């Protein structure tokens, strides 16, 4: 089992998918000879050439709209939007068409495509390069939204996304690209879309997160154990939509206390939906209000102030302690 970081694991998944299925094409701005501004498409153009690794003009609506056309015409496009903040330009195609063709034509026309985009903050990037707006896709029926948190699940989820018969938004926590390495099996593996994972067992409190903030969430869990002797259970959503209610509820009914962590702004964030589902299925098990540790209801500040904006282990720890003390 080779060790690799998330950037490499995503690159590996693309390479494997293109090798095993020649319907898979990669497209986007600078994904060709430049191999992507984060080098995620490294080696692909050299190996698969212009036809299957397509440098597009600078136009996000064009990228996603043509990807939809390609998917309708039998390909499996994996379209990269250079930064998730720019996928807004293509939102109409995703919401109106990628999400709807199957439903609109009662299954006759389908759009098996993936939109990949680096998402979130933490890399001292300039304005519009650190956005977290997964909600606008999670709220759009017909799309699936996944977000890996480490090299191994990144590769497995991307394979699942590419093989999925429906359109998948695959958001990559760019802060994790080269943050740490993990062993990744030699065999291709997939993770079922729609399933969360309990990545740390515990009985006292449930910490729920996804993507980049899984790191500080797990750190906080360790601190809780070391400093307070509290056993925190940690859930990694992995899929944001459709959300795995069952795994969440099973943990909550056990612990009765919950903290949810994400970078995106709080209002109408993913945490709100998690809370709504806890309310529907496990209200009577709650021993304290569910706490939200999230980005504030602001555009993420320019990078000099972004650290204070982002969730971190201390914020999660504080929230967990307040929840436990409630």
């Amino acid at each position: 089992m080779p060790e690799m970081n998330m950037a490499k694991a995503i690159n590996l998944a693309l390479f494997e998918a293109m090798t095993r299925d020649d319907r898979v094409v990669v497209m986007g701005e600078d994904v060709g000879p430049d191999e992507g501004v984060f080098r995620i498409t490294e080696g692909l153009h050299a190996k698969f050439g212009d036809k299957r690794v397509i440098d597009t003009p600078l136009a996000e609506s064009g990228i996603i709209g043509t990807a939809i056309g390609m998917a309708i015409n039998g390909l499996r496009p994996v379209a990269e939007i250079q930064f998730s903040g720019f996928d807004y330009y293509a939102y109409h195609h995703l919401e109106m068409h990628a999400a709807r063709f199957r439903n609109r034509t009662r299954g006759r026309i389908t759009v098996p495509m993936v939109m990949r985009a680096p998402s979130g903050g933490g890399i001292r990037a300039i304005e519009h390069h650190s956005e977290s707006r997964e909600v606008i896709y999670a709220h759009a029926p017909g799309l699936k939204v996944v977000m890996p948190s480490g090299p191994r699940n990144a590769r497995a989820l991307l394979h699942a996304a590419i093989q999925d018969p429906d359109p998948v938004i695959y958001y990559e926590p760019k802060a994790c690209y080269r943050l740490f390495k993990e062993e990744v099996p030699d065999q291709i593996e997939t993770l079922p879309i729609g399933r969360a994972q309990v990545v740390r067992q515990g009985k006292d409190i449930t910490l729920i997160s996804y993507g980049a903030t899984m790191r500080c969430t797990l750190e906080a869990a360790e601190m809780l154990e070391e400093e307070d002797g509290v056993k925190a259970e940690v859930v990694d959503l992995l899929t944001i939509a459709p959300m795995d209610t069952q795994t969440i509820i099973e943990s909550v009914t056990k612990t009765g206390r919950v903290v949810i962590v994400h970078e995106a702004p709080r209002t109408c964030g993913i945490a709100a939906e998690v809370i709504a589902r806890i309310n529907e299925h496990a209200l009577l098990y709650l021993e304290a209000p569910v706490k939200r540790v999230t980005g504030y209801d602001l555009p993420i500040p320019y990078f000099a102030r972004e650290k204070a904006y982002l969730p971190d282990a201390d914020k999660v720890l504080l929230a967990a302690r307040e929840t436990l003390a409630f």
Partner: protein
Amino acid sequence: MPRKPLDIPLKLETISVLDENGEVDKSLEPKIPNDELKNWYRWMLMGRRVDERLLKLQRQGRIGTFPQASGHEAIALGTIVAIEKPDWFVPAYRETTGFLYRGWTIETILLYWSGLEEGAIPPEGMNDLPIAVPVATQLVHAAGIGMANNVKGEKKVVMTYFGDGASSEGDTHEALNFASVFKAPVVFTCLNNQYAISVPLHRQMNCQTVAQRAISYGIPGVRVDGNDVLAVYVAAKEAVERARKGEGPTLIEGLTYRYTPHTTSDDPKRYRKEEEAQQWAAKEPLIRFRKYLEKKGILNDKIVTQMEEEIETRIQDAIKNVERMLKEAPYSDPLVMFDYLYADMPPHLQEQRDELAHFLSRNKSDAEKKHETAAH
């Protein structure tokens, strides 16, 4: 270079073959077998009659609002006959004649305007997309479909449509640019009927033609008389051949007039003069094509009357069929709304489906209860 005109290769043309009186320019007359030409007229006539009947049905409240297509038959037919069955048809919404020609049944069309997704299902085995409501988006899909043909090495051509108003959308620019950069086999046909609902051409754009925008993409641009099915065909045929040869996209602009209101809920009196429509009445596409075919001895009153009867029967049957269908599942069943969102239904949708089923059954029984008590 001090200061001189920027010279760029212009590939811009105008084409007209049939005049208003059905007189043909022999030098440009395409060689089409007579029964084929007769067929073309039949399809255009059917497009017209279906459109007129839809209007009646809408007035009777039997279908919803819809955009009338009368007057657009020449552009729709002249382009659609230029592609082959395995080619792609990526419509906007005024190409009724094209839909019929591609095998969309009148039943399907009626289902669509009756508010049922079942009306958006393309004919089995055809590479057709359904009506695109968000203007210009279909052009980008068409470009992608064409790019995929290149990737797969398939020689299929994509015929797509948009309006003069749609030409203002950024997506139109992106679609034309992608198609030209990737030499995608796409024919972009603009139905320039000079109005976007109430907005006239000169408020939509500051240039004389849509065709000249081909210059922005280094592709051929052709403006044809959009009421002249032969001119449309000539332009479309050449564009399709170029596309099939790998020479990339063409922009065709068919100049016509929106003879009807924008949709059944529009009132043109608010923004244009009756006279304007009258001036265009004589230019209308069916009249001149019929004159031409009569001169060629292909049509006469008897043949046309027979066509009219066949079409009328076909329409009546379709209406009857749909009336029956609407009473049956799936058309009558709201719960099917959940069944095609994803290949596999996720748990939360199954829950919501059960929730609605529970509600409907419970409500039904409530209603019955009320009814009974009322009966006593």
